[in-house]
């Protein structure tokens, strides 16, 4: 241990797409592995990341010009092609998002990246504290029964009390 007191990390998870589900769980599990005390506050669109069933997580490449569209299979040259999908296509082709989500999951798996379920479990094993925002749960109609065990519930003040003592705070 570099210091007497463990470093504290306060994260806000506000995005629930498959790609943005990664940062809070990656940083949370890595920080806990490094003997830091971590709290993740799930609010707005981050709330679905606490659901027991994460199969609904997906991506929507529409209007995201920074998202590479590459195929995780086929010859090497083919895999390097970045398919520039015009918005008119991504918005009109049925099940385009489902296809893109499936490709992203395959690409992650191929590169040895853990699933969201695995990273979330690692966080819990390493005592990362998950706090769900009660207000946005009420607004969006989430129930505690939908969420995994071990989640605590609170509001802005709950997060801020922890963040006030934190060495690292991030809004993701």
């Amino acid at each position, binding site marked *: *241990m*570099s210091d007497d007191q463990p470093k504290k990390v306060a994260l806000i998870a506000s995005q629930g797409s498959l790609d943005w589900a990664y940062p809070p769980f*990656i940083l949370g*599990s*890595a920080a*806990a*592995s*490094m*003997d*830091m005390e971590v709290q993740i506050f799930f609010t707005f669109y981050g709330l679905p990341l606490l659901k027991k069933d994460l199969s609904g997580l997906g991506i929507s490449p529409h209007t995201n010009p920074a998202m590479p569209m590459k195929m995780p299979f086929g010859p090497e040259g083919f895999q390097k092609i970045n398919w520039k999908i015009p918005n008119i296509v991504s918005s009109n082709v049925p099940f385009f998002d489902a296809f893109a989500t499936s490709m992203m999951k395959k690409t992650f798996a191929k*590169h*040895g*990246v*853990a699933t969201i379920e*695995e*990273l979330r479990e*690692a966080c819990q*094993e*390493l005592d990362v504290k998950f706090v769900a925002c009660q207000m946005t749960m009420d607004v969006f109609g989430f129930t505690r029964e939908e969420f995994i065990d071990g989640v605590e519930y609170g509001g802005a003040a709950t997060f801020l009390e922890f963040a006030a003592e934190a060495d690292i705070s991030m809004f993701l």
Partner: protein
Amino acid sequence: MTDHTHELDARGLNCPMPVIKTKKALAPLQSGDVLKVISTDPGSVPDMAALARRTGNEIIEQTESNGEYIFYFKKN
């Protein structure tokens, strides 16, 4: 090669899994035990060094061959 009492195969895993698995593998060890970790993730080279610095579990030896990175952690 450094003598080691425990071994972790983290080949094929990507960030942050090698770090997490190393932490978990170190947890039950006795002080002074040596854990050998094998990784294929080039990013684990700086990451394992950071893990060692933060947790005080020193890397006493480190080698690389054929895309495999091998670390020997001494449990503090």
